[in-house]
């Protein structure tokens, strides 16, 4: 296979363009295709028509349809030779037929692969590459990565085209039949009352029309699938680049040959570089005339071109005219200059006075700001959050904890009460005293709903360790007495009386403050 012998232009195409190229290929080579294909079609169709029992004649078209893969192989055989500009005679085509029947997977093509919708796309793998088994599967997968959907749509499109041909032929008869017999015949078909005399001929007509549709469309279908395949291989193997590189290599070879006679001893690279100085003008001239240049061969004379360009540029498409709607004042005259010179002058004067006044105000404000900067800056400082002084509750779990309700000497009174046997009152007095200190002196946020335990928890972070220990003991003893009605022992209570002064030390300050207030 020599790519330079290809009769088609190898370039990058979209899949649809490749399909179109297949159609163009058939248009180009239809003479080579039509006779072998027509004979083969007859070779299949005639026996089918003659051998089928009369009852089965309506399916004669279907039988011929079933043999399409066989026709495809012959068509592809001829097309693949035409692709390389090799003419195949009728005899050659038919002598290739046995080989095509045996070695191109025709059996599977006529049986379980008959309904494949990408038939024409994969046929070249079977027939031209001759792959079987696993390599075939892998090849198919690689090809199907692109172009598969196009192959499917190609098949669907070609089915439509065949129907168009068949139905058009029928309608043509309808149009050119002045007696209306054909129309009556069609109506009778739908009514079901089949005319026995004409039935045979009608079926022959069906068959003939279908063969004509096959004859007209199938070559295009095979060629389009073939070109899809060629396009995919061009993508995969960069055929277009191969052709261009081969041409380049050939040109360089000629250059070196020409130069070898002149300067045989130079190194190749040097030769090449020097060569481009010597030979390049002619090379360039040669390529300037090449068909690949994107400049047209014949051009208009400058003045003609200018006129044509002017004409084209005047087209609507190139002149973006847009319609814009806006409101425009009815009296669009210039505003007249004011006649009243005096009032104008007064307004100017007032304006300048106001302006200077404003400047004065600005300066005064700046000076004031400088003078009172301390005060202003202090406003800018973040405000410290001042806790709202909470009024401590007056009664906690039934205990009166107003400072006024307590005697001056709490420890002494308590000890006296204890010795008198009034245990409950003694402990109560001590505990109330402690609560008063906590609420009024240490500003503990004690609410009416708090329990003894809550108060202990609240006091813990802010109270010194020994004072907290005292408070804990006191609370515990008080709870034992108040709720469990158990009397604490003498040695338990004694530390409370003796430690009180130490605990209440801050309270003295509080009371003096209260006196002052």
């Amino acid at each position: 296979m020599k790519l330079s012998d290809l009769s088609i232009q190898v370039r990058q195409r979209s899949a649809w363009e490749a399909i179109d190229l297949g159609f163009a290929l058939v248009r180009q080579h239809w003479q080579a295709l039509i006779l072998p294909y027509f004979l083969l079609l007859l070779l299949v169709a005639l026996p089918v028509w003659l051998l089928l029992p009369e009852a089965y004649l309506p399916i004669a078209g279907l039988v011929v349809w079933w043999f399409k893969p066989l026709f495809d192989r012959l068509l592809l055989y001829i097309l693949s030779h035409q692709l390389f500009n090799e003419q195949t005679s009728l005899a050659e085509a038919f002598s290739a037929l046995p080989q095509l029947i045996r070695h191109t997977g025709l059996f599977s093509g006529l049986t379980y692969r008959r309904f494949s919708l990408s038939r024409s796309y994969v046929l070249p793998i079977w027939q031209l590459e001759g792959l079987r088994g696993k390599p075939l599967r892998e090849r198919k997968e690689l090809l199907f990565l692109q172009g598969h959907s196009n192959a499917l749509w190609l098949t669907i499109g070609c089915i439509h085209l065949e129907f168009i041909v068949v139905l058009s032929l029928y309608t043509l008869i309808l149009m050119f039949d002045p007696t209306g017999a054909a129309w009556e015949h069609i109506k009778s078909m739908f009514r079901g009352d089949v005319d026995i005399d004409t039935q045979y001929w009608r079926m022959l007509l069906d068959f003939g029309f279908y063969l004509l549709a096959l004859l007209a469309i199938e070559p295009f279908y095979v060629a389009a699938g073939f070109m899809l395949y060629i396009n995919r291989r061009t993508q995969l193997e960069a055929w277009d680049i191969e052709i261009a590189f081969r041409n380049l290599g050939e040109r360089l070879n000629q250059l070196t040959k020409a130069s070898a006679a002149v300067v045989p001893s130079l190194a190749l690279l040097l030769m090449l570089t020097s060569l481009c100085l010597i030979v390049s003008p002619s090379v360039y001239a040669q390529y300037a005339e090449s068909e690949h240049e994107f400049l047209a061969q014949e051009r208009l004379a400058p003045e003609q071109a200018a006129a044509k360009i002017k004409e084209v540029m005047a087209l609507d498409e190139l002149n973006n005219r847009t319609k814009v709607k806006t409101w425009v004042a009815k009296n669009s005259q210039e505003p007249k200059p004011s006649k009243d010179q005096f009032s104008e002058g007064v307004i100017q004067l007032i304006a300048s006075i106001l302006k200077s006044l404003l400047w004065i105000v600005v300066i005064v404000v700046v000076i004031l700001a400088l003078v009172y900067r301390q005060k202003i800056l202090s406003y800018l400082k973040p405000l410290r959050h001042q806790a709202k002084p909470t009024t401590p509750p007056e009664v906690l779990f039934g205990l009166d904890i107003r400072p006024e309700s307590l005697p001056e000497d709490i420890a002494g009174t308590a000890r006296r009460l204890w010795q008198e046997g009034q245990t409950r009152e003694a402990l109560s007095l001590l505990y109330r005293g402690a609560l008063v200190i906590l609420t009024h002196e240490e500003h503990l946020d004690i609410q009416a709903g708090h329990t003894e335990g809550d108060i202990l928890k609240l006091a813990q972070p802010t109270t010194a360790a020994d004072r907290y220990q005292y408070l804990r003991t006191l609370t515990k003893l008080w709870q034992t007495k108040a709720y469990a009605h158990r009397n604490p022992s003498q040695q338990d209570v004694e530390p409370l009386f003796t430690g009180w002064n130490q605990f209440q030390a801050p309270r003295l300050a509080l009371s003096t403050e209260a006196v002052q207030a």
Partner: protein
Amino acid sequence: MRLDTTYTVNTPEGIALELSPAGPVPRTLAWLVDLMIRAGISLLIIIVLAFMGNLGLGLAMIFIFLLEWFYPVWFELRYQGQTPGKRLLNIYVAQLDASPISPAASVVRNLLRVVDFLPFFYGFGLASTLISKRFQRLGDLAANTVVLHKSLPVLNQRDLSASPEPAPLILSLPEQQALILFAQREATLTPERQQELALFTENLVKNKTDPAAYLRSLASWLIGKQA
């Protein structure tokens, strides 16, 4: 002259434009898509207007008539020659010289559908597209229009990563294009195939340890990359 589907139009400036006409298969598929859309809209119109009785049906008939005849005209003039089906298939209608389709041409080519449609479902149209050189149906021939493929976006628009190296000789335009394409398609070719391709240039890659890499750096130089 190798076979291709394209034809060339010269602009007055002397630039040759290559145009690629679209063949029967993409056009049939595009037409089928448009048919589905029109059928859907027609059905909707009938359903909505059927509530108005005979008057509604009469109105529906008028709407469907307008839809049938002016759907392609409207889209072709409004959307750069593309009906929804054509947009899906990436094809468009244009004048023969690829200039935008004129209103008169659009009306002519769509009114002549009635001829192409004969004898049944575009029988003549199909014959005409198969025979005429630029896949034109009769309406296209009359209106001097053609259905074209939208040109491909530049394939594999990748930045060339190789460090540039100046070419040792003057390369013609097709050769330069081949080199750049070679570098751009690095990702889609196997390394073995790349080396094989590079060796086809023979003397250009003589004494190079990695011919493919050398050609890629030439391509970088050709597209004007700075070292």
